[in-house]
């Protein structure tokens, strides 16, 4: 497998202390004053030229948020966030609504290059047609505003809508009204409510009935502006029989202060529809002493609303100082299926509390959870998951496998699954293991001439293989690199 060889090569090339994506792009920002108030909410809404109903929706969320308190149940520790000391809106100054690449700030394009956006996408961004058979449409979220959407026209021919959510609110209000907040209710949790009040932008995808999206849809998130909370909102709707694969990649520049990121992603799959959502998250994890890094408090949920629908989450989490994230599936339709494949790597002082919820409501619903946690350095890595079958979920099936790998004796790996069955015919199986890379395994590789870093990369790649296989090809290679990079310096 060349990808592994590439990983091995990559390891030897990278300088341990250099966070590859830790640079600041110098583009003048247009931003709201610090702090949060109704006025800021109105400001954001006005900036987006939003209709009144949207403003009301935001204000309602804001008022509810004021009555809520931050959750404390997860195994993450951080100083209290001062929500009045953050910027809630920050947009790169650019000509409004760019229609083509020519209109895009050249600095932005240069940044994509620095970001190492996979070559194929860069070629697409640069307008190189026919570079490959597989095409990816990219909706780049640079700080909060969706800057460029490629292939929009071709997608439109297929009837697919792929645009910034701010645009969708203006252009497709009926669809947005119908689905926004229908999977993650406004008051779902503290961060989701905050997001509902102040979300700045994000992606919107609508796949009409019977349409198989002709390309992978891809988005890149970046947090650039100092002290800017980033609050994307993503909404994906697959109508009856529709199929879509969506890729989300995240990088953020190096910062001293912790930056808050609280996104909400809602997926709706109607009858026979299928949504595959893949994430590679490599935001700045903080430096070697645990200073800086992103706080990533994300609510992602998919609703298998129709019979025989399917939602599949795949995530590779290597970044952020704190990750608090549980991409979930509500298996409402009969025979619907949910999947969660996850790799969470933590090193340094990173804290990860991640997992999934599979809520079986419909008959003969199936779910599968494969989670691989790798803890190194002084990090803490927790899998937290819920699998539940409600009274009517006859014939529900779940298989869960959570494996943790510890590298070094200063880190922690924790597994906290909740299994709740209210239906006798629901069959749930859960297994979890925790182990370390065995000394003799390592020696075996060394004896064959591999360096200890190469050996760890090889063994870890074997450990996470089941999940890597679920990723689209472009991401698989990238993900393996990222894992190896994140684990650098973890073996003495």
């Amino acid at each position, binding site marked *: 497998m060349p990808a592994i060889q590439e990983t091995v090569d990559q390891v030897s090339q990278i300088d341990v202390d250099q966070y590859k994506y830790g640079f600041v792009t110098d583009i003048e920002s247009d931003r709201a004053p610090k702090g949060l108030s109704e006025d800021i909410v109105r400001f954001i809404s006005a900036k987006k030229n939003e209709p009144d109903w949207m403003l009301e929706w935001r204000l309602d969320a804001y008022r509810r948020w004021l009555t809520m308190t931050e959750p404390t*149940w997860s195994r993450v520790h951080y100083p209290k966030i001062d929500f009045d000391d953050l910027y809630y809106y920050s947009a790169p100054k650019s000509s409004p609504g760019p229609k083509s690449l020519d209109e895009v700030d050249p600095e932005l394009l240069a940044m994509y290059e620095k970001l190492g956006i996979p070559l194929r996408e860069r070629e697409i961004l640069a307008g190189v047609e026919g570079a490959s058979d597989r095409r990816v449409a990219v909706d780049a979220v640079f700080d909060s505003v969706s800057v460029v959407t490629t292939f929009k026209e071709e997608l439109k021919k297929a009837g697919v809508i792929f645009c910034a959510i701010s645009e969708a609110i203006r252009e497709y209000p009926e669809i947005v009204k119908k689905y926004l907040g229908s999977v993650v209710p406004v008051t779902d949790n503290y961060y989701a409510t905050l997001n509902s009040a102040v979300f700045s932008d994000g992606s919107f995808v609508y796949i009409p009935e019977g349409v198989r999206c002709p390309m992978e849809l891809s988005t890149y998130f970046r947090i650039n502006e100092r002290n800017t909370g980033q609050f994307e909102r993503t909404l994906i709707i697959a109508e009856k029989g529709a199929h879509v694969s969506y890729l989300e990649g995240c990088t953020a520049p190096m910062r001293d202060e912790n930056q808050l990121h609280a996104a909400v992603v809602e997926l709706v799959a109607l009858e026979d529809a299928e949504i595959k959502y893949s994430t590679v998250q490599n935001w700045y994890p903080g430096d070697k002493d645990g200073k800086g890094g992103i706080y990533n408090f994300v609510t992602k949920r998919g609703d298998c609303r129709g019979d025989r629908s399917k939602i599949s989450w795949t995530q590779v989490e290597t970044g952020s100082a704190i990750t608090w994230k549980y991409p979930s599936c509500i298996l409402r339709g009969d025979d619907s299926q949910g999947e969660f494949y996850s790799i969470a790597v933590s090193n340094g002082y990173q804290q990860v509390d991640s997992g999934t919820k599979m809520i079986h409501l419909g008959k003969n619903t199936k779910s599968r959870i494969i989670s691989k946690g790798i803890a190194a350095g002084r990090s803490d890595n927790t899998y937290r998951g819920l699998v539940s079958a409600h*009274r009517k979920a006859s014939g529900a099936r779940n298989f869960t496998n959570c494996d*943790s790998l*510890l*590298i*070094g*004796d*200063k*880190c*922690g*790996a*924790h*597994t*906290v*699954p*909740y*299994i*709740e*069955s*209210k*239906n*006798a*015919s*629901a*069959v*749930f*199986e*859960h*297994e*979890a*293991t*925790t*182990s*370390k890379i065995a000394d003799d395994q390592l020696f075996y590789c060394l004896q064959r001439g591999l360096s200890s870093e190469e050996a760890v990369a090889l063994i870890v790649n074997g450990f996470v293989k089941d999940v890597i296989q679920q990723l689209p090809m472009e991401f698989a290679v990238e993900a393996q690199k990222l894992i190896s990079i994140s684990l650098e310096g973890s073996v003495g």
Partner: protein
Amino acid sequence: MNAEPRILRTQAEETLALEFAAARTQLPGSPAIAAARESAFATFQKLGLPHRRTEAWRYTDLRALLRTMPPLAVGATAEVSSLADPLPGLDRARLVVVDGIFRPDLSDLNGIDGVTVRPLVDLLQASDARIGQQIATLNDAVVSLNSALMIGGVSIEVPAGARIERAIEIAHVTSSAVASHVRNIVTVGADASVRLLETHVGPAGSAYQANIVTEATVGDRAKVIWAKLQSEGNAAVHLGTLAVTIGTETQFDHLTLMIGATVSRAQTFVTYSGENARAGLFGATMLRGKQHADIALSVDHAVPNGASRELFKAVMDGRSEGVFQGRIIVRPDAQKTDGRMMTQGLLLSEDASFFVKPELEIFADDVQCAHGATSGEIDDDILFYLLSRGIPRPEAETLLVTAFLAEAIEGLGDEAIGDAFEEISRNWLATRGQEAA
């Protein structure tokens, strides 16, 4: 009472406050113990009865389940006309505790020479340091309530090197609709070997409450078999806690069988204080009607080279709810820990529920830890295989359920106790469908 005033949220909590205020001067023990009671009750008031948001009690919401409190048992020697034997045919010495009071008159202490048995009251008067020692860091409202209100129980001391062949039973009997708070202290000396039984019974239809806390230490190289049978009356509330510390090279095997009560919770906290200790922790739960039973387990590997095996099985019929919360903790220096935990639930009825939370909390890297959990109904293929061989469905089901539970019961590794407990599971299956609690 000097404790800070707090608005009590439930009627049960209010009743308890009044009861404690009335009883505190009459509860047995030295001034030091009296002070400890005050502080324990203050802790209880601070915590309140456990509820859904109390993570350790997530599935057993006592604030909702304990609407009213029966009066406190007063320590009078209640008349017990005939003592039902929950384990007929099993030879053992019996230490009978009725409504929290140790009753030598009803007990049989033969065949356990060398073992010292004392009523708890003696230890309370002497401010024995073992009281409260094992539970000091638990921060559990129910245990704090017990520390405030404990009226009796027994102390069992097995001297170092003693090998006690005859099993010793602490028989907890409740006579009527009272709330009794019992504390037992068990001390097993180094190199000793002993088989302990803990039984809990009471009248059917009586809404009594039993809160039993047992603190135990197992000395180095000792070998302990400990089996608990919770077969309380069908309207009772049972809250049982065992907190035990096991020493170097000990072998500690424990089985909890839950069959009685309407609401029950069995908490077991095992802490390793010496290396190379092995614990086997097993559970078998059989529920029907609207019974709710919760087994909570915490295995704390605080030192290196410990091993633990956990196997918990639960069978739920009717509208019952079975709960298992188990946690294996491996502390930062507890290298070479080997911990394996398995939980399996079998739902016999459409309306039954099973809630499981098996946790691994690991801070050392050179460990082998695993847990597994399954939930489901009787395997159709196996059932069909038996049916096709001419075995009628009820018998086939009984066969399969007995075998399912037997694996956990036999894990204890004591044939006589295992046989007696399996007999209970067979009887339970034989009366399936007859009783709707």
